[in-house]
């Protein structure tokens, strides 16, 4: 095994470049080094001006998403040796405006998130103790509660690229996380946004969101399930006379 690997890193400094350019760096190739370790090596020892986000380096904070050799991944959980002998191409996440180097603007998601009301909605006062929930009921939504908001799914989804108004995979999965929670009563409140044209109906089930998801959330499944729910609802509305509803 060679002991270095070339990383081609996309650089974009507003005011300096009109569009991203690639800069190559040679970094040591070590068995346990993630792509993020390579970037940290560059930043600490070669070029302090390289900008990117990271924090937990254990795949749970969701800040280090990047495009590595064309695929959206968590750079702290993707290893350099998997790309040996290289070069490794590191670019910012696709489908988001690039702020600087590998940093993208996820403001769009942050603005959309509250619109699907991802919080527990109840009309009544909470009980003295806990709401009871069996392990089976927990399993009904557990998968969808694993989202770390890393945005890999948005980066993978071509529909989001083409139609930025699309609410998008993670936000819909989070809405489903609450819709399917036995303690929640807010499904009706979420329906307007979810079943709008920019909601689930914009998704053509490309499925790349679920392929990209590092936490097994399966947003594509969440969306597809909601389509079924929404369609059943619409059918009922359509078939039943107004008074009977």
């Amino acid at each position, binding site marked *: 095994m060679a002991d270095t690997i070339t990383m081609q890193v996309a650089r974009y400094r*507003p005011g300096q470049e009109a569009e991203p350019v690639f800069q190559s760096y040679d970094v040591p190739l070590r068995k*346990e080094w993630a792509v993020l370790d390579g970037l940290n090596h560059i930043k*600490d020892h070669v070029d302090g001006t390289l*900008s990117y986000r990271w924090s937990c380096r254990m795949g*749970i904070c969701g800040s280090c998403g990047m495009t590595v050799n064309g695929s959206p991944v968590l750079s702290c959980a993707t290893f350099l040796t998997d790309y040996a002998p290289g070069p490794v191409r590191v670019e910012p996440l696709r489908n988001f405006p690039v702020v600087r180097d590998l940093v993208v603007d996820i403001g769009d998601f942050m603005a959309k998130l509250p619109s699907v009301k991802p919080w*527990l909605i109840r009309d009544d006062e909470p009980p003295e103790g806990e*709401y009871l*929930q069996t392990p089976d009921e927990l399993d009904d939504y557990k998968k969808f509660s694993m989202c*770390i908001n890393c945005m890999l799914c948005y980066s993978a989804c071509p529909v989001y690229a083409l139609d930025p108004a699309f609410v998008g995979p993670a936000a819909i999965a989070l809405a489903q996380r609450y819709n399917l929670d036995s303690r929640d009563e807010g499904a009706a409140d979420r329906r307007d946004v979810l079943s709008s044209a920019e909601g689930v109906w914009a998704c053509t089930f490309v499925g790349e969101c679920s392929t990209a998801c590092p936490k097994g959330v399966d947003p594509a499944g969440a969306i597809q399930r909601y389509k079924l729910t929404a369609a059943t609802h619409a059918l009922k509305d359509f078939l039943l006379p107004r008074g009977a509803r």
Partner: protein
Amino acid sequence: MSTFHNVVVVGGGGAGLRAAIAVAEANPRLTVAVVSKVYPMRSHTVSAEGGAAAVAGPDDSLEEHLYDTISGGDWLVDQDAAEAFVQEAPRELLRLEHWGCPWSRQRDGRIAVRAFGGMKKKRTWFAADKTGFHMLHTLFQTTLSNPDVVRYDEWFVTSLLVDDGQVYGVVAIELATGRVETVIANAVILCTGGCGRVFPFTTNANIKTGDGMALAYRAGAPLKDMEFVQYHPTGLPFTGILITEAARAEGGWLLNKDGYRYLQDYDLGTPTPHPVLRSMELGPRDRLSQAFVHEHDKGRTTDTPYGPIVHLDLRHLGAEVIDAKLPFVRELCSKYENIDPVKELIPVRPVVHYMMGGVHTDIHGATSLTGLYAAGEVACVSINGANRLGSNSLPECLVFGARAGQAAAEFVTSTRTAPGAAVYAQARDAQRLLEREFARHAEGSHIGGRERIADIRTEMQTAMENGAGIYRDGESLAKAADRLRDLRERFGRATVDDRSRTFNTEAVALLELSFMLDVAESIVVSALHRGESRGAHQRTDFPGRDDERFLAHSLVRRTPDGGGLVDYMPVKITQWPPGERVYGR
């Protein structure tokens, strides 16, 4: 430019978000801002795995949780604070349940609890082994429903605005634009988390650089018990990724290189096939980490390129238990170590994990400065004493986050003091100061050569590991203090190559390093002064606990020349006089 909010919370982790909700609930007319250098859901609370302790079942009692906490903290715990803590923890965790936290459940639908190190009863609530993740996201999503909570995401706070001993807001850099902004407020709550990055090998995220401790320290608030740094006994070599204590609570064993459960040699009980509470692998973290050092001295650890290790054995638990209770452990091991804990041993070593010390506060989260509050890991309310028990920290964030929020809300509702002209002048100055600071570091031509931020940081971390590690003595600490003085001087020559305003992470790293140097120094000074061994602070030159002289909290204040001045305040003891810490017997 400046904006105004009644209360500013610095930090969007467990403590910060809980505090913000508490402010909004206490008085809906108040506006509250959450300023955080990362998006709130990226805060380090997200990495907490094991669980959150609160008395839950009928077979447990507040008394027992209180006693475990006090003895676990080697009696350096303020018993009134700990009492408030154990009393309010269950309610707080229950509130989180009402907000949707997916706690793991028993068959009948009630909350499940698990065992944890140093706890006599099973009282640790958990959401599989992603407890912090679920708690943080639940809190974050709950704040989304509250329009009174205004967020300033990716704003880096650089200093507090202080006028005449009262705090009136913060100065911050908006990272996306590089603009220096001020947020004026009647009260500030610091919830910036810990400072593990002061050490080389830590479970802590990149963002845990002790900013809030340094902010308060510089503003004149004393830091308390800074010498107590917790090493967690089971971190993965190289990455420092934590293998949660829950792995041992579910029945994991620690083995030395001969496959021997070595903890039995360190007065931690006798090995049994099934886990026994407060015994062996379920002893407290300080004792387990210390045992590792002794094993190493006896040559019974295994050497690896990343230092000596022992092994954590989960194989006998079987795939089913591991997948149900410890799925993240399995995921982390396979991802970062390429091993499957169902079939293989996990290499582990002690790793810096948690800061018992912090900004000194009373039991309402109030600091010594008017208008300044602190909660979470940044604060030292003194419920953790000389050694925090696993799973006490998450509920601490909630209990004291809520208390600080309420106290701050009351304070701003009842006082009329408005920020004077001096504050606004300071706000204007702050911008110029920061610009000048950067210009200085950005200048290429320094007398005495240029210094890289990363080099200074690495040397600081090494100095801390060597001088103020699991075992320390007067000599090692003095040497560390020297090194730090030296590094501070070199810091003046540190250069920033990045001149861009947009998302300048090099500038952030520079500011963080300056914060860390302050924090490191406060740790070393405090440790030098405490001539005894207690909990996580083990002096080889003073091996015994000395209640005569040191049953007291250390308080370190910053002197004008940048040094630290240490004095002591008494520990509040209401029920339990200091006793012997007994585990496994």
